[in-house]
């Protein structure tokens, strides 16, 4: 078993009904880390998926070994719970549905070393970052919401609702203690609180590939709760 170096990266993968995507994401992670020689582990936290995601996670653990893949039952917040098992000094949070491609993780690490950042955030809005599979309406809502967020919160990061990030372990732990919201707003709150605490944030352009065609992930409810969350952050931070 290779010694656990200081650059070890722990990937936290909360999953829900990702039976099909989970093996693919894990395979891509294993290959990316293998190609770049980065020490890693993947912690899968499944929230009781009825589609057999847990079985798949356990199979993957057998195939790749428990040193590399660990499956844990959730208890409380997936991130907080997953972090208890993380042995790396850096933690990567990402979606398990292939909208985030593991190939960006070595770029996150490079960026982190470059500026000794506490957090490296993937951004869809700068450089050659972008999206695939979004129609005009979705893009409009996304940019409009982001503009509003920039005006109200002046966060110092271009993509607040993105959830593909690298954190120093201690930084993530500190932030998890302070953050209270959920969903999109949680991701925003993390960045806002990070700035309050004086943490530094670097950015790397990423591509977000949305494969869930035809499924409206952005309904009226989500927009309302986003606005409520934004105003709450505006008034309390």
């Amino acid at each position, binding site marked *: 078993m290779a010694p656990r170096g200081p650059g070890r990266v722990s990937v936290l993968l909360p999953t829900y009904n990702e039976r099909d995507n989970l093996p693919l994401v894990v395979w891509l992670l294993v290959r990316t880390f293998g190609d770049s020689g980065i020490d890693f582990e993947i912690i899968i936290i499944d929230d009781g998926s009825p589609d057999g995601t847990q079985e798949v996670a356990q199979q993957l653990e057998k195939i790749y070994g428990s040193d590399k893949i660990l499956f844990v039952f959730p208890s409380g917040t997936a991130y907080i719970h997953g972090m208890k098992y993380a042995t790396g000094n850096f933690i990567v949070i990402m979606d398990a549905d292939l909208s985030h*491609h593991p190939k960006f993780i070595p770029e996150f690490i490079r960026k982190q070393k470059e500026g000794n950042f506490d957090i490296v955030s993937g951004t869809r809005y700068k450089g050659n970052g972008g999206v695939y599979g979004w129609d005009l309406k979705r*893009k409009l809502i996304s940019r409009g919401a982001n503009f509003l967020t920039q005006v*109200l919160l002046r966060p110092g990061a271009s993509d607040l609702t993105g959830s593909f990030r690298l954190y120093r372990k201690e930084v993530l732990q500190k932030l998890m203690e302070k953050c209270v919201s959920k969903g999109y707003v949680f991701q925003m709150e993390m960045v806002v609180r990070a700035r309050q605490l004086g943490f530094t944030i670097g950015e790397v352009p990423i*591509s977000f590939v949305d494969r869930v065609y035809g499924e409206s992930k952005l309904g009226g409810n989500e927009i309302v709760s986003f606005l409520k969350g934004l105003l709450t952050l505006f008034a309390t931070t």
Partner: protein
Amino acid sequence: MTKLAQWLCGLALLGSAWAALALAPPGLQPPAPLRQALLPLPVYLLVAFGCYSLATVGYRVATFNDCEEAAAELQEHIKAARADLRRRGLRL
């Protein structure tokens, strides 16, 4: 200070400066041309900000990158992943 507090402070400062100058009693009024420009200033600024917002969001939507190659690459990777995982004994 919260962002809300910052905004309220800023607005209170600018608001009182504007009110002092634009709504001053006859004895302390600034010269007429200045007053003419000052009175509608808040509305002008609001409209200007509205235009700026629309233009900015419009520009950003128009230049939102479409990652065609990323999507294509992902499809390739998925094929390779499925084949390799089957070899390693994963029951998909």
